């Protein structure tokens, strides 16, 4: 093996080594710290417009503690490959009003999600309360578009 090939091999393995190490740190930050998610669709208007990007923290969902009125990103109960972005209206033990006029209690370990855009949102009013295990993160503020960077407001109604 010539000196050049040896240098090439050492260099490639150094790059690979560093790539694996920093990739692992990145994975841990995204999985256990915070991640940026892009929200599409009208279900959270006017709080979140379609194609806004939000920063979500992933610490609360690993501890199972989701406060009321937080906006969460969770796996869709009808398709595990998709994610949905909704607001937590009620947590376990609360009573919620369902479309047919009666109230129901949110069971232990579940939350009730509704989109801010009531008329145009497929949420717990259709598929029922979702288990906290499906929740991937809690949105803390908007990072895109630059004109709208900042905290996400809670609607007054």
């Amino acid at each position, binding site marked *: 093996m010539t000196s050049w090939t040896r*240098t*090439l091999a*050492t*260099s*490639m393995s*150094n*790059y690979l080594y*560093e790539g*694996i*190490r920093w*990739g*692992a*740190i990145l*994975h*841990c930050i995204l*999985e256990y710290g915070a991640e940026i998610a892009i929200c599409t669709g009208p279900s959270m208007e006017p709080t979140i417009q379609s194609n806004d990007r939000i920063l979500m923290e992933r610490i609360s969902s690993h*501890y*199972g503690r989701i406060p009321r009125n937080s906006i969460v990103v969770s*796996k*869709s*109960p*009808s*398709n*595990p*490959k998709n994610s949905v972005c909704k607001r937590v209206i009620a947590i376990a033990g609360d009573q919620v009003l369902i479309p047919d006029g009666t109230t129901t209690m949110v*069971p*232990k*370990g*579940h939350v009730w999600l509704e989109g801010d855009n009531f008329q145009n949102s497929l949420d717990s009013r259709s598929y029922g309360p*979702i*288990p*906290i*295990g*499906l929740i991937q993160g809690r949105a803390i503020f908007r990072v895109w578009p630059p004109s709208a960077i900042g905290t996400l407001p809670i609607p007054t109604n």
Partner: protein
Amino acid sequence: KTYLIPCFYVRCSHEICRPSCTNRDLIVLELEVLSKLESTLFPDSMLNIATHLKIVFKTLLFGVPVGITFIDAVGYVAKVQGHSMQPVLNPRHNSSDYVFLNNWPVTSNSFDKISRGDIVSLISPKDPQQRLIKRVIGLGGDIVETHGYESSYVRIPEGHCWVEGDHRGNSLDSNSFGPIAVGLIKSRATCIVWPPARWQFLNRQVPFANVKGNSLKSVEDRDAEAYGTNSHVSKLS
């Protein structure tokens, strides 16, 4: 440490750049990663203990995330507690089985690889901090016969599944909490790794024939799902 970088990343006034360097040349760059950080944290005047601390610090800084990433991506060994999966897991009262939980179906986002008869580890719908280990009996669209549930037959909604412990009557499973979203499934138990006398692969089988039918899919789709092949199954969305 030695790295090869393309010549145009280095300004040609730098002494390591050869005079005849063109954009397609690769030049050798010697680089000491974290050297500035190390020299500020551990100045030369400190004892040999500092050198050992430096090694420990660097190992932890990189070793722990790599370990966590491996566990999240590939899988880990877990102890099985309880009798809900007897006789397949924990058949004796005095010893617990340790199984290997494979995270790859979740990592690769190919939830269609989870098939009927698989033993899976899932987040409990009653308590998100707890994991349950059960067998997948039915998938979305199936009609299952229940055992102690509020109705005798249940049609499983899309994106959900029906899980049961092999030990009928002694298991907290779908017979108590109903169909669960497939998104709660975190890993598949592939084999028993401890004790050595119990080394075996865990097979895909449904102990009680209580899947009564599938209201949505064709025969080919059902077979593809049962054998976990890679053929695309188009689900109603």
